[in-house]
C-alpha cells in the first residue's frame, strides 16, 4: 500500500498518497477524517464606516467567505520507535507539523508550526487548521466555557432571536479556551487546544481552529496598530499543539471518552514543571 500508517493499540492514523491525514481508527470504528491548513484573507475596509471595517486584532473578518488552501501536497517523513510514532509533514515553506501517537495514548497529537506568514502580496492572512470528518453533526457543535462546561452551538443560529448572518464565517466563530467537539448518534470528534483560539464548525462534521494571524490594517477598535508583529524582523512564528480524540458518541451512553478528554485536558494545561540540574560533578551513583 502507498498509504502511511502510525498507530498504537488504541488509535490508528492513516495518511493518503498526498501526505494528508485521511482516516482515523479508534474505539472500535474507522472514520474518514482529514486535516489540513488553510487561510482566510483579511478584510481591508474603510474604518470610518462601521460596516466596512478591516480585519484586525479585535475582530476576525475575512475579505470574503472563500478559503484558500495552503498546499495540495504535503512532504512527509515517518519515524517509528518503541515509544512514539511520528509523521513530520511539510505543507509549504512556512507551515509544517508533526503528527504523533505515543504508545499508551488514546489520542493523536498535532504539533503545528506556522510562520512567518508571508505578506509580500500585501494581503493579511488568518491561518486555520481544519479537521473534516464524515460525522453527521447537523450544524451542532460544542465549545468550552473557559475550560469548564461545554456550550452547545448551532451554526447560523442564536438561541434568543432570529438571526440572519451577513458574514457566515466570522458570525459562526466562537472562543475556544480548551476544547471544541461535535458528534452524531454514533461517533464523536473532539479537539483539545493548548491556548485560547478561535474556532467553528462551518460544515457538518468539520471543526476548524485559528492558529496564527498576520494583518496589515488596524481594525479601529482601539489597539491603534495592525496585528503585524515586525519588531524582530519578518513576523512571528507560532508553534502549538492540538489533541484529537475520536470515539463513540456520548449519546451511546459511553462516558469513558468524556472522562479521558477531561483528564487529558487537565494534564495538557497543567503539565509537570520541569527543572534541569547540571550533574557534571556527580556520577549516577552519587546522584542516587
Amino acid at each position: 500500500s502507498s498509504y502511511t500508517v502510525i498507530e498504537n493499540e488504541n488509535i490508528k492514523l492513516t495518511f493518503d498518497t498526498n501526505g494528508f491525514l485521511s482516516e482515523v481508527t479508534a474505539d472500535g470504528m474507522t472514520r474518514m477524517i482529514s486535516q489540513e491548513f488553510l487561510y482566510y484573507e483579511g478584510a481591508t475596509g474603510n474604518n470610518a464606516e462601521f460596516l466596512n471595517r478591516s480585519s484586525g486584532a479585535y475582530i476576525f473578518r475575512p475579505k470574503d467567505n472563500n478559503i484558500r488552501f495552503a498546499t495540495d501536497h504535503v512532504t512527509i517523513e515517518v519515524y517509528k520507535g518503541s515509544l512514539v510514532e511520528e509523521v513530520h509533514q511539510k505543507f509549504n515553506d512556512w507551515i509544517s507539523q508533526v503528527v504523533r501517537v505515543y504508545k499508551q495514548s488514546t489520542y493523536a497529537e498535532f504539533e503545528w508550526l506556522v510562520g512567518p506568514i508571508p505578506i509580500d502580496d500585501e494581503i493579511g492572512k488568518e491561518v486555520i487548521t481544519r479537521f473534516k470528518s464524515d460525522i453527521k453533526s447537523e450544524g451542532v457543535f460544542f465549545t468550552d466555557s473557559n475550560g469548564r462546561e461545554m456550550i452547545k452551538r448551532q451554526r447560523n443560529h442564536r438561541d434568543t432571536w432570529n438571526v440572519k448572518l451577513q458574514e457566515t464565517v466570522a458570525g459562526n466563530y466562537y472562543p475556544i479556551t480548551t476544547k471544541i467537539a461535535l458528534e452524531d448518534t454514533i461517533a464523536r470528534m473532539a479537539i483539545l487546544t493548548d491556548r485560547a483560539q478561535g474556532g467553528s464548525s462551518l460544515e457538518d462534521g468539520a471543526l476548524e481552529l485559528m492558529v496564527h494571524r498576520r494583518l496589515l490594517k488596524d481594525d479601529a477598535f482601539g489597539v491603534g496598530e495592525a496585528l503585524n508583529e515586525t519588531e524582530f524582523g519578518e513576523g512571528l512564528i507560532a508553534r502549538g499543539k492540538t489533541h484529537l480524540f475520536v470515539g463513540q458518541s456520548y449519546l451511546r451512553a459511553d462516558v469513558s471518552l468524556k472522562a479521558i478528554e477531561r483528564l487529558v485536558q487537565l494534564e495538557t494545561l497543567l503539565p509537570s514543571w520541569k527543572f534541569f540540574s547540571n550533574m557534571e560533578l556527580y556520577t549516577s551513583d552519587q546522584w542516587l
Partner: protein
Amino acid sequence: DPHLTFLRETMGIMQHHDAVTGTEKEKVALDYAKRMSVALRACSTNIRNVLNQFSTGPGSEPTSQRPFEFKTCTLLNISSCATSESSGPFALTLYNPLAHTTKEYVRVPVADYKYIVLDPTGKSLTTQVVPVPKPVAAIKHRNSIAEYELVFLASNLPAMGYKTYYIQRDDSSPVNIKPTALPKRE
C-alpha cells in the same frame, strides 16, 4: 514573599483580555514577556530552596554543602534548553501539580542521539530519539544546537509530588542508533 508576590501580580496583569487573546500592542506584548520572565526568575529562588530541602534524604549530606541548581527552560516549547543541550550529564526533576498520579511522555531537546535515562531507583528506562523538524522559514530563527528530542515515559508521577531522572550520554550502548526516516512510499 516579595518574589512570590511579583509573580502573583504579573499573573494578575496577564488576565487582561488583551493579554489572554494577544490583541495588545506589540510593545505591550514585549513588556508582558519581560514581566513574566523576571517574575519566573524571581520565583526560581524559592523553588530552588524548596527542592533542595526535599532532595535531602536520610543519610545524604546537608543541602548547604551540596545544593543543586534547579533551572527552568522557558524555551522547551520550541525544543531549546541550554542545560540539556550541553554534553554533560544532567538531572531532570518533574513536579506534578495535579491532585492525582499522572504519567507523561517527556521530550528533552538534546544535541546527540546517544543517551541513557535512569529513574529514581537507578533503573535504565526505554528511550527513543526523534529529530527536531527544521522547516525552511524557521531555521534561522532557532538559536539552539538541539538536533533531536529524547523521549521517555515518566510514569507514576505522584500527586503534587516530584520524581527526578538522571540523563547522560552513552556512546557504548548498541540500542542507541541514529533515528532515520522510513523509506518514502511512492
